[in-house]
């Protein structure tokens, strides 16, 4: 019975997403990128390991190593996905999470015979599923196209789907907490965006610790750095993995995961106690 309810809640989430233009825009953007690589961009491999690129009838004057070319394109797609794709995903998902607690709907949902935590958790999961499928669609699509055009099948690019989905889950936890507290999709989006914007600044904690002259503010800075999700640094790890560079520290990943776990638990606990 709980599996049936879970499936119904996920299906409801997907159905609602289908009725919203942001999700179509999200998938449309991925499709546009895939079509770009499929039709507009021509890659001619010459002299074995070098290639030229043709776009809108213009051919690049110099041939570059194919491998570098492919890595370059993959890097651009991964970075675009991690920043713009993530922003769009958050924007779209905040609306979807807030819809659950909309007056007139939440009373109805809560009257059904299932625990509140499950209600929220399965909407969360449905949301992650939507984003995960889209991100994988883009990454695998681009990977297949570049691979078939150049013969280079670099699996490390596929990790980009994983890192992006991971950071999305972290930020969606924050969105969920904000929605439970305020019911506002706009506010939830703003909070998540603020975390994205502030993370490259916080990541400079070594430099800031030198610059700040009060021990108190240094502690504040360090505290914020260690507690808040490390969007910027996980993004850097994403690129390191892509380029085959060694990863300096996994701390940004696990501390962000810990943050997400705590925030999501808090959201569920508060949701279970609220009156609507």
């Amino acid at each position, binding site marked *: 019975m709980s599996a049936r309810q879970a499936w*119904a809640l996920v299906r409801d989430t997907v159905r609602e997403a289908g009725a919203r233009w942001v999700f179509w825009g999200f998938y449309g953007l991925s499709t546009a990128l895939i079509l770009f690589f499929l039709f507009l961009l021509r890659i001619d491999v010459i002299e074995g390991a070098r290639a030229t690129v043709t776009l809108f009838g213009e051919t690049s004057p110099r041939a570059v190593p194919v491998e570098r070319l492919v890595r370059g394109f993959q890097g651009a797609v991964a970075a675009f996905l991690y920043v713009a794709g993530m922003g769009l995903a958050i924007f779209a998902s905040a609306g979807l999470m807030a819809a659950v607690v909309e007056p007139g709907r939440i009373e109805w949902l809560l009257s059904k015979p299932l625990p509140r935590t499950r209600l929220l958790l399965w909407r969360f999961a449905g949301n992650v599923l939507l984003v995960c499928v889209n991100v994988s669609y883009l990454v695998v699509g681009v990977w297949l196209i570049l691979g078939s055009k150049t013969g280079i099948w670099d699996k490390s690019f596929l990790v980009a789907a994983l890192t992006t989905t991971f950071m999305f889950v972290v930020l969606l936890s924050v969105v969920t907490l904000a929605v439970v507290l305020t019911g506002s999709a706009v506010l939830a989006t703003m909070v998540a965006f603020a975390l994205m914007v502030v993370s490259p600044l916080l990541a400079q904690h070594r430099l800031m610790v030198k610059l700040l002259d009060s021990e108190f503010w240094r502690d504040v800075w360090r505290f914020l750095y260690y507690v808040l999700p490390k969007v910027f640094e996980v993004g850097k790890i994403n690129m390191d993995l892509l380029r085959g560079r060694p990863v300096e520290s996994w701390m940004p990943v696990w501390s962000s995961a810990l943050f997400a776990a705590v925030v999501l638990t808090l959201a569920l606990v508060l949701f279970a106690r609220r009156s609507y």
Partner: protein
Amino acid sequence: MSDDAAIETHGLTRIFRRRWRGGEVRAVDGVTLRVERGTSFGLLGPNGAGKTTFVKLLLGIVTPTAGSARLLGVDFRRPEARQAVGYLPENHRLPSYWTAAGLLDFAGALSGMDPGARRRRIPELLELVGLREWADVRLSRYSKGMLQRLGLAQALIHSPALLFLDEPTDGVDPVGRQQIRAILRELEERGVTVFVNSHLLGEVEMFCREVAIMDHGRIVASGKVKDLTAGKGYRLTAARVPEAAFEELRALAVTAAYRDGLAEFQFRTREEVNRAVDLVRAQGGWLESIIPTSSTLEEVFMRTVRAEAGEETR
């Protein structure tokens, strides 16, 4: 056997704190109530009496400040208590991206019905509420009355033993109301317990066997509709009744009010109504009608609520 009750509450209380102005609202104030299985029960009360909050408490939508309750013998804090319960919320906004059939399917799945049972039940229900032709149309294109009928259908999807309806005929036209009433009758015959929140006295009177009147979060009167409305009288309506005469008649009458530009009085005895007629005529008023009545729930309601208000000002 205390498990026999469909609804049983003990001192159920919910206090809302006003965030800005301070102070508190006792929305539901120590309600102890028992509704037997198979009863059609009406909860009446003026706006803000606490009817909606009471139902939300029972369904775990609002958390209680104090008190306990059981639905069909199960502690109301457990999700299983809502297993055999259907609910039509007040001012609901069902997800408008579903079609009628899709929404019923979703509701059925949330109640744990298997797909086969849902497939069989959905056309039946759509037929029942007169939305069969609309099965595949999105709710965003429904009128208010249609949404209300669909809301009733979704509450019935899993054939509940206990049904909560908060202002069920809100926004429904007279024909639709008649249909809803017929549906409720049928449910009652099948032994379903129906709990209706309403401020439409006539409706509660026509449908419910038992009724409680709520005011300021408390049950101020309850009993069988039959008993509460026992007692005969006369209703007099008149036009152009001078103020002085109106006051004089008010003292004589059970209830007095202006309605649609006419003065309306309820009297207990033939002597009283005749005295009133003399008075109206002597003061230059015009008689509109005199109707013998068996005391309506409305009078009981007005009397009880007004008595409560009187007590408070004292």
